[in-house]
Every structure is written in structure tokens, then in C-alpha cells.
């Protein structure tokens, strides 16, 4: 029997883990007080990633065992969406090569964005892909720089065999400004932490949690997973104690291995909990931001029947340690390096051509000849040789999920790349199709002829003259 609830979940964590000790090694002279935070690591997005590309990867993780054609709406929640006016969820939709007849919504403006998007989906009756992603841009030498990290998560809400069902939810909205970032600004401005803890987290969330538990008719002690996406030490425990929630139920906020992923963190913690939850357990997700959203789930017997491709634990295990703080600063635009004249190349995108070729560019859809079966990228009116010159025989052939292998490669130190040398080469898709593409996320000397690849959606280039980023697919080590 079909029921409504969470059908699937996934996560994404960028591969680079910047060591906090490396940050402190540079900034300690100035911000000595942060020494206590200079341990563990934070996930940092590559130069070619943003909230859209990260959300897309989380969506692919969640959709691994779900028929994409069932998705009716795509939501993306973030306070760091790349476009203020171009639907970001629409880019995710195109990259997933979903049918055009789907809805889309961008949710932004608060640390509550992800739970608000999730509540909207839970309150409807459509199958909704809810994604959340954040690429954090803290000021160098700030506490936020130490506590934050980049990540994304996705859940699919809809009718089917849910692994978790909504029991109750409760929201309050109050313009409590613990921190803010005006539109167009890069960094957050924070008010005193003690005030935020006492007047914000405690005074706003404690009564709200009590109200939710009362609404659900559930005792605090019956909560098995208490998810509080707050980086401030001790706050989840303080809220749990007040609500009668057992200390053992308080979930790890992933500070040591990932960092706080802003508005995405609520969803990141939810998928982390779903990965280990057992049937019958109750999950309380409590997100804070100008009020709070509280969502209580009950895990069903279907838990374990649907698995993400990697899940948060898998993504956390896929990691490359970095102590290169300068590279991180440069990739965030916080350090101006001399990029040389080759970086002046104009990357203007013809929007007309992008529209005509959107399936190829955003969805990595190639072609397959209906007469000979030859697969190629991109599609063309006349199929690639050796073929019979038939015109118009190419049918759409999505390549984004097709594994590939390295055919040739180089490490190009001459061409401009924000992360030199630029790795690129020819790749062959299993089952046909070849293209020359950039490689990303390769460590050291792992790149060689024959290496297994998986395609990932990334930023290809920034058009700095016009403020536009161009997306395309790159080849990463298989996972």
C-alpha cells in the first residue's frame, strides 16, 4: 500500500578536507583565541563547485535507486545560491535530465531554508526532490571559518514506500537576528555568542520543542535521534536536557569531519540519521533561523530497503586531506593571485546556443544512432563515422550516469586553471561514446590511461565580465 513520506535520501561532501590546524598555522598570530578550534577537518568545495553542483550530486546520490521520471518537483534550499535571478532548481532539473513537466522552487534567506523546503514538500502531495547545499564563505580568521564546511543533502518526499513518515511539525517565526548577510555580501556578521545561546537557542527553541512534543503526544525520552544543526558547543545537549530527550539521542553535529554546512546542515544531519536509523525510531529535526522549524519523523519498516549510492558516510570516506589554506582562500576569492594574461580569456556564453544545446551541456545527453547503435557526444544530424551517412537518426542517449575510462591525458601547466596543472584528456564511455573532457578530484598520480571514471557536474568557467558561470560535466575518479 502506498503511503506518503520520505522515499529516499542522499548526500554530497566535496572531496577536499582542509585541516583546521593549517588554517590556524597561518592565522594564529592574529586570531590566537581560535586555537581550541584548530583540530579536525572541514570539507571545502573545489573551485568548480557551487551550491547547485553540490545539490545535484546529493540528488544523484538519492536517486540511485529511484525512477527519476517519478519526480514531480525539484526544490533547492541554500543561502548561497549562485543565481539571484535564474532558477537554481531549474539547473538541477536539467542536469538530472528530468522531463520538462516538473515544478521547481528555490528556497533561501535563512538557516531554516532546508527544513522549510522539506516541510513544504511534506505538506503537499507531490513527489518532490528536496535538495539543500551550502558553499560557505566565512571571513578569514573568523570562528565561522573554523566551524563551517561545505556539503549538500537531498531527500525525496512522495507517495510510495516511505522509509520515514512525518508525525508532526511545528514552526515559529521571529525576527531574531543572531547573524546576517545582506544580499550581495560575501560574509556573515555575528552578534555575541552568549546572547544568541541564551536568548535565541534557549528562549526560542525550548518552548517550541515542548509544543511539538505535546502536539505529537510524544515524550522527550521517546526521541531516538535529536538533530540540532547548530555548531555552538553544548547547545544540542542543553536543548535535549530541557526537553527530556536522552543524552544518547543527541546526534553528532559532524563538526570534526565536515563542519557546519549552513542552511544545508539540517538536511545533512537528517540523511546521516536515516543512514543508521532503525524501524520504529523517532527522529526530531530542529533547525534554527529567525525562529525554528521542528519536524518529527517515525522510521518505518522499509528503512534499509532504499540506499543512497554513497550516503554521507561514503562521501566522508571519499576524501583528500589538504593543508593548502592559500589554495582554499584563492578558490573562495579571498586571496588575489596573479593569474596571468591567459586568465583574461573571455568566457561569454551565448544564451541562445546554451538553450539549443541545453541537454548536451547541462544534461550530458549524447546521441545514439537508431540504425547502427553508434553512441556519440555531442549528438549530430549525421552520425559519426563509421556510419552510413543517414541523416537525423540520432536519438537522445544520456551519458551522465555511464561509467568511462581514461584514454589519453595530460597535466597542462600552460593553460590557465584555478587549480593548476589543468588535467584533461580523451575518455571512452563504456558501451560507446568518446569525448575530451577535464578531469577533476584526482589526487596525486592516480590519473592514468585506463583509470575508471564517473562524470560529475561542475563549473566549467566563470564569465567575470558579465557575472555568469558556465556549467558542464567533468570526469572524476570512479566511485
Amino acid at each position, binding site marked *: 500500500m502506498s503511503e506518503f513520506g520520505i522515499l529516499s535520501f542522499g548526500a554530497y561532501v566535496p572531496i577536499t578536507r582542509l585541516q583546521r590546524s593549517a588554517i590556524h598555522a597561518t592565522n594564529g598570530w592574529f586570531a590566537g583565541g581560535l586555537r581550541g578550534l584548530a583540530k579536525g577537518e572541514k570539507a571545502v568545495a573545489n573551485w568548480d563547485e557551487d551550491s547547485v553542483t553540490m545539490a545535484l550530486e546529493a540528488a544523484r546520490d538519492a536517486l540511485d535507486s529511484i525512477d527519476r521520471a517519478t519526480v514531480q518537483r525539484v526544490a533547492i534550499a541554500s543561502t548561497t545560491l549562485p543565481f539571484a535571478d535564474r532558477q537554481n532548481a531549474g539547473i538541477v532539473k536539467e542536469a538530472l535530465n528530468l522531463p520538462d513537466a516538473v515544478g521547481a522552487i528555490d528556497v533561501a534567506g535563512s538557516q531554516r531554508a532546508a527544513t522549510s523546503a522539506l516541510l513544504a514538500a511534506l505538506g503537499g502531495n507531490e513527489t518532490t526532490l528536496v535538495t539543500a547545499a551550502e558553499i560557505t564563505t566565512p571571513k578569514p580568521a573568523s570562528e565561522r571559518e573554523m566551524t563551517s564546511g561545505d556539503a549538500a543533502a537531498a531527500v525525496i518526499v512522495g507517495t510510495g514506500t516511505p522509509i520515514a513518515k512525518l508525525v508532526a511539525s511545528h514552526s515559529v517565526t521571529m525576527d531574531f537576528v543572531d547573524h546576517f548577510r545582506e544580499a550581495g555580501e560575501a560574509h556573515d556578521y555575528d552578534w555575541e555568542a552568549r546572547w544568541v545561546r541564551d536568548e535565541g537557542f534557549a528562549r526560542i527553541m525550548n518552548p517550541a520543542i515542548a509544543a511539538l512534543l505535546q502536539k505529537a503526544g510524544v515524550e522527550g525520552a521517546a526521541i531516538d535521534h535529536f538533530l540540532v544543526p547548530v555548531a555552538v558547543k553544548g547547545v544540542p545537549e542543553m536543548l535535549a536536557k530541557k526537553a527530556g530527550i536522552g543524552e544518547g539521542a543527541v546526534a553528532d553535529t559532524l563538526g570534526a569531519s565536515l563542519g557546519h554546512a549552513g542552511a544545508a546542515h539540517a538536511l545533512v544531519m537528517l540523511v546521516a540519521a536515516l543512514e543508521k536509523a532503525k524501524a520504529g525510531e523517532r527522529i526530531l529535526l530542529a533547525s534554527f533561523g529567525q525562529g525554528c522549524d521542528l519536524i518529527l519523523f517515525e522510521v518505518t519498516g522499509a528503512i534499509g530497503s532504499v540506499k543512497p549510492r554513497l550516503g554521507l558516510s561514503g562521501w566522508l570516506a571519499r576524501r583528500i586531506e589538504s593543508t593548502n589554506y592559500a589554495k582554499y582562500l584563492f578558490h573562495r576569492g579571498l586571496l588575489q593571485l596573479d593569474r*596571468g*594574461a*591567459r586568465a*583574461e*580569456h*573571455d*568566457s561569454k*556564453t*551565448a544564451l541562445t*546556443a*546554451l538553450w539549443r*544545446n541545453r541537454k*548536451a*551541456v547541462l544534461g550530458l545527453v549524447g546521441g545514439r544512432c537508431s540504425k547502427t547503435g*553508434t553512441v*556519440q*557526444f*555531442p549528438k*549530430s544530424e549525421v552520425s*559519426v*563515422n*563509421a556510419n552510413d551517412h543517414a541523416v537525423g537518426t540520432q536519438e537522445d542517449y544520456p551519458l551522465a550516469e555511464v561509467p568511462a575510462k581514461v*584514454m*589519453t*591525458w*595530460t*597535466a*597542462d*601547466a*600552460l*593553460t*590557465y586553471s584555478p587549480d593548476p*596543472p*589543468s588535467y*584533461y*584528456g*580523451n575518455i*571512452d564511455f563504456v558501451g*560507446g*561514446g*568518446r*569525448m*575530451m*573532457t*577535464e578531469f577533476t578530484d584526482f589526487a596525486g598520480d592516480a590519473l*592514468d*590511461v*585506463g583509470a575508471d571514471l564517473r562524470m560529475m557536474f561542475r563549473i*566549467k*568557467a566563470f564569465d567575470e565580465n558579465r557575472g555568469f558561470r*558556465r556549467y*558542464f560535466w567533468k570526469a572524476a575518479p570512479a566511485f
Partner: protein
Amino acid sequence: MAKGIRDKVAILGMGCAKFGERWDKDEDQLMLEAYEEAMADAGIEASQIDAAWLGAAFDAQNIGPSGIPLAVALRLPDIGVTKVENYCASGTESFRGAVYAVASGACDIALAMGAEKLKDTGYGGLPVRTRGTTHDMVGITGSAPGNFAQLASAYRGVHGVGKDDLKRAMAHVSVKSHANGAKNPKAHLQKAVTMDQVLNAPMIAEPLGLFDCCGVSDGAACAIVTTPEIARALGKTDIVTVKALQLATSNGWEMQAQGWNGSYFHTTRVAATKAYDEAGITDPRSQLSLIEVHDCFSVTELVTMEDLHISKEGQGWRDVLDGFYDSDGSIPCQIDGGLKCFGHPIGASGLRMIYENYLQILGRAGERQRQDNPVFALSHNLGGMPNQNVSSIAIIGRADA
């Protein structure tokens, strides 16, 4: 069945500007430099030229588009001037236009000019440029060394050649060309280098180091062509004719299908086979006197020895190390220094190669003159990248050969 170009067209005169960093010259001045030498060699007046072709690849640098810059630079007498662009093979393309015009009978005398002014960019290497609106959304804006370096990884994989062996063979290619360039007063780079220098040079694009890459130069080269009959009527006795002129252009097979293995130039193999057929050459390894190939990178030259069907597939690196292509070897390759040291002003390079072959056949190559009376000389001019390119081959030789 087409009969081909063999012996229908003769070279009446050729000229070549000094290649290099010509900071003090604009492209029109370089064109004039090549033109004056060619005209003196041809012994004709400007009024006798019926049509002209200009080959230039990066026309956004310096001269701008169309045939007008050539017509203005030489103040040509209101004749048709066509600008052609076929990547780095633009020089041979201009030659092809002039040769075909004469062969068709439409023109008695035609001029081909190849020119490039690359040193107006403000940085080293080739200018970064778009390759088209749609390409830029899905293709790679890499560098030339990055594209050609990929030959090496594929060649090693296909033929089981060790990394060090291939690197040494590539280094030999460059050491040889530097030694040759040192004897060429018009060459951009006229200094010999050692194996150690080449092997220890900074890496540009793995595994190509600095000395595996050719010079980026300013320059121009010019050819004036006519029929053998007109050449004789103008008093020429030592006639050099065009024996073959072939061009093969990728149709996307290498880049998009899965049949190509990345270790060779498909187009060069096609063009070479046709060119030998057109020239009546049955055994290039014994019949060719010398060759000028598109050695934009050492590895390009190395695999081209096989694509021209001179070295056996997978054995080119051994021939290179054996000195087969050295200036005193069986078939000297780049006896003038090649792109590597003569330099590579893109649009001029194809004509520069023909210029050297022409001088060698006529015994006018000075200190670097080959002493065995060259008969057939081949030039190979490539444009694009290993996985998508245009490859042109011109064979010239003694009219009586």
C-alpha cells in the same frame, strides 16, 4: 578518376622572412620581406601576378580578417586575394589555392603568402582563443602542448614503450633540430642544446618539457607558382615542380567514435598514402630525399615519422634514436631547424617548409645544404589537435624526377 597535381605546376620563386621575435615589425612588413625575396627569385613584376592567397590563422592578432591586408601590404594590382585559415596548416592551404589556380588554367602566375604576428599578445605561447560558441560550452580550452602531450600517454600504452625511452627519443628530436637550427641564419632559435638540458627542462604539459615545444614566432613566407612551360619561357632552367598536394580533414571520427587509439594522426596517414600515390612514390623510405614535418612538439614529429609510412608503426622512436632523421641520416627531418628552431609563425610555417625543400633541391641551402642532390622533398603541415585536425602534405621535386 582525378589525375592529380603532379608536374602541372612549377615553383617560380620563393622567399622567407627572418623568423623570430620581430618586435620592430608589423605583419605587413614581414610579408613584404618574404615577398621581395620571392619576387627577386621569380624575376617578375607585380603586374604579372594574377591572383593571391593569404594563409593566416590568428588574424585577430595584428592584421585582421580578409585578403585585404596582403593586397595593401604588397599594393597588389586589384587582383583577387583570398584569405584562408586552416589552423596551423594555413600556410600550405594558401599554397594549395595558388597551385590549384595555376593548374586549372585560370591563372598564369599566382602568389601564396603565409604570415603570422604572434608576439603582440603580451604573453608566451599561442594566443588563447575561442573555438566557437558551442564548442566552448562542451570542449576544452586547453593549450597546444596539453593537447599534443596526450599523444605520448597513448603511444606508450599502445606500443609498450617505457616512459624514459620515449622521453629520450623525444629529446633526441629536439637536440637534432637545435643542431640544425644553429646553421640557419633565418631561424628563430640558433643555439644547440644538450640531451641533459632537454630532459631536465621545466614541464609544460606532462610529459612535454620546455624543449619539447616549438618556438612561437613572427614571420612570413611566400611562394610564386606558374606552369612549367611559363617558367621555362621566363628563363628558368632548374625547374622544381609540385609532385603532390594532399589535405585530409578530420570528420569527428577520432574525437567521437572509439576506433582511434590516440597514438597517431589518422589524417596524416590518409594524406600520406594519397600523396605518395599522386607523386608516384612507391617506397618513401628509400625515395624521399628529405622531409620537413609539423614538429610543433617533439612527440608530434616522432609519431609523424610513422604516419608518413617511413618508420614502422611503434618503431619510429627507435629510428629517431638511431639518427635516421638527423641531418646526416638517411632522411634528414627539419634540416632547417623545423618549427622547433626555425620557428612557428602559424600561417607561414607550411610555406617555410616548402621554402626549405625548394632551396635544398636547388642546392641553395648554404651551410646546411644536403650534399646528395635531393630529388623528392616532402612537407607535412598539421593544424588542430591529435583528436581533430587538418593534415596537409606537399611533395615537391625536380621536374625531371
